[in-house]
């Protein structure tokens, strides 16, 4: 136990000093390299527990979070969950229902998993997703979309990643009414944010063995804004000569995606196009109930989340499909470089769905959440 305390102190000090590479001192277990652009964080030692923040969320959130915990325990994943719930009242420090402690926890642990959260309707508080995004500076949203073998959709050969800039663009929220009946909305593109997301896209492509990055834009019409985005992408592309880089106009991209999604590999886009294209790709593989997603923030923070809604109508009935949250948790594991565990769990999930014996209602089966979870554990 003394060694554990020593290790924790060493870890804290090391992360304060922003130690260079994680290959230095293997005995100080998790050394997070906290560069701005550092995204593959730790070389986690198998024996030591990684703390991760878990937001179960609302509606079906708690059930599917429970599934994830069970599967992770059965697979011996060295993660210790720190659960946080959305409060019932507005925390004045964050202007929303998320407490300051929750945000601090994510900042400390650098890794988190978030279930679906329903934003309560009303005024005087920020939406929960917006709070997380702004406070944690989550600048890139990564959605790997691949066809699930065994779950047949009209598209069988989808294997692409959409990386979407998450902080600016059309969603800056800066609107005003000029005169009655005329509204202006500002779309903002900055060099810094575009460089950041382009860097992440190329880094991701390199670390995951992808060979093409496509930048999606509408620079023939919005010449300065998307033009700046493209210029930043081109600059970053020069630093990665082994990765092919191309630029595709968004209407071409939409058409090609629905005709032949195998043409694309990694897509990097500003905010609005990213929103639409990532949902389109989710639709290609079977919907939001099966799509993993991960938000990357400054300082190497990764917050994996399930993008579907909280489905209040089936909450508590043991009918929910935990696939999206589990695949997101797998993305989180890959971010932590626990690739063998990630592969094991991912294969278990894919095999369970492919087998077809245990499927939840939204995939056309009739199993309950617990049966599905047990089947995955059996497949491990």
């Amino acid at each position, binding site marked *: 136990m003394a060694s554990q305390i020593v290790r924790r102190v060493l870890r804290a000090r090391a992360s304060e000093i922003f130690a260079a590479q994680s290959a230095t001192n293997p005995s100080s277990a998790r050394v997070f390299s906290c560069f701005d652009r550092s995204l593959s964080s730790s070389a986690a030692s198998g024996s030591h527990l990684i703390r991760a923040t878990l937001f179960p969320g609302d509606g079906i959130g708690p059930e599917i979070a429970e599934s994830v915990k069970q599967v992770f325990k059965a697979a011996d994943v060295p993660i210790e969950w720190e659960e946080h719930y959305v409060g019932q009242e507005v925390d004045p420090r964050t202007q929303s229902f998320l407490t300051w402690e929750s945000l601090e926890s994510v900042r400390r642990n650098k890794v988190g998993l978030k279930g679906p959260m329903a934003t309560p309707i009303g005024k005087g508080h920020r939406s929960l997703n917006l709070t997380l995004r702004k406070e944690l500076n989550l600048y890139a949203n990564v959605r790997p979309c691949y066809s699930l073998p065994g779950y047949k959709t*009209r598209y069988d050969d989808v294997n692409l990643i959409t990386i979407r800039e998450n902080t600016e663009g059309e969603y800056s929220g800066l*609107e005003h009414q000029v005169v009655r009946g005329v509204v202006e909305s500002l*779309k903002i*593109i900055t060099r810094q944010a575009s460089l950041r997301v382009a860097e992440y896209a190329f880094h991701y492509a390199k670390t995951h063995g992808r060979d093409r990055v496509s930048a999606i834009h509408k620079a*023939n019409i919005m010449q*300065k804004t998307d033009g700046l985005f493209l210029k930043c992408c081109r600059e970053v592309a020069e630093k990665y000569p082994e990765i092919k880089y191309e630029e595709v*106009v968004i209407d071409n991209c*939409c*058409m090609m995606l629905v005709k032949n999604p195998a043409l694309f590999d990694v897509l990097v886009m500003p905010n609005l196009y990213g929103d639409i294209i990532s949902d389109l790709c989710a639709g290609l593989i079977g919907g939001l109930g099966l799509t993993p997603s991960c938000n990357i923030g400054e300082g190497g923070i990764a917050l994996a989340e399930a993008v579907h809604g909280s489905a209040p109508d089936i909450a508590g009935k043991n009918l929910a499909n935990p696939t999206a949250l589990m695949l997101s948790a797998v993305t989180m594991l890959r971010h932590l470089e626990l690739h063998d565990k990630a592969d094991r769990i991912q294969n278990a999930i894919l095999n369970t769905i492919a087998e077809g014996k245990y499927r939840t209602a939204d995939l056309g089966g009739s199993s309950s959440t617990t049966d599905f979870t047990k089947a995955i554990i059996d497949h491990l």
Partner: protein
Amino acid sequence: MARRAIPILKRLVQSSDNPVNVGLASRVDRTRSVTYMPRPGDGTPRAVTLIPGDGIGPLVTGAVEQVMAAMHAPVYFERYEIHGDMKSVPQEVMDSIKKNKVCLKGGLNTPVGGGVSSLNVQLRKELDLYASLVHCCNYPGLPTRHENVDIVVIRENTEGEYAGLEHEVVPGVVESLKVITKFCSERIAQYAFEYAYLNNRKKVTAVHKANIMKLADGLFLESCREVATKYPGIKYNEIIVDNCCMQLVAKPEQFDVMVTPNLYGNLVANTAAGIAGGTGVMPGGNVGADHAVFEQGASAGNVGNMKVLEQKKANPVALLLSSAMMLRHLRFPSFADRLESAVKRVISEGKNHTKDLGGNCTTQEVVDAVIAALD
């Protein structure tokens, strides 16, 4: 009696030999049950401005000219050459369009990031062509992953994100203004509902992102809702644009007429065209209070790429169907019907498909097939 029976028997054998039994059926369909009674003088040939455009534009507009000549349609074309890298549309072209009121054009290639504003957008703004229409539907003979697609996307064409008002605030920070006005939103909603009413469509869906852009898209939605109350026979609903794209690839049969602001309309139209068979096949046009410009419906690929151009394998179907729409707009319904059924017959027979439809024919072969299918 045998002598009288022979021609009947011959016709029956012919029609059963014909693998695609379209010939007999369309002959029955095409006879109009009620005659179209024109005004005296309606048959004088109408002048239509023709802009061949860039890339594959000259190829496909040439195809239209050939087919029109073969049909002896009462239109004649006044050709004007414009290219996408010109600074602005020449005045003589604008005058011609204003005189003729109808124009047929190929794609104009806007150089990316080149500081030249798009001529397509300029044309639409100057002539105030505020509604852009793309009709995406499944054509028999064209294999697609989705069935039962019959969507008309009506897109606001003058404002929104394409207002073109951009500036650099400080180096490295650029702003672009998206402008939504009540006037434009109201008239596009009015057009959409009127189109649905005149074409016996049952549902109009407004596509928006008002949960994020509350004021801008909120204003658009408000205008749509107001117009919807005036058409109680037409169902109206609203859908967020990212959900809309997801539904389009999963269940496209739920959509009928869709009305959208400028940018979302671009994406939705191209997605809908892609699921229904590709942008090389979908007709469309831009219409305003006084003028109309017909072109290939969805904008993706309307200029083509070098390989297609060199091998002359561009798909003329979209522009041919758009010119059929133009003939109807000019009030020549029987010519429009003839052209449309000839093109549909060629598509369904499947022997003359260009590369984007899975075949290997050149543009000229498709044109010849269409002319042969005319009657």
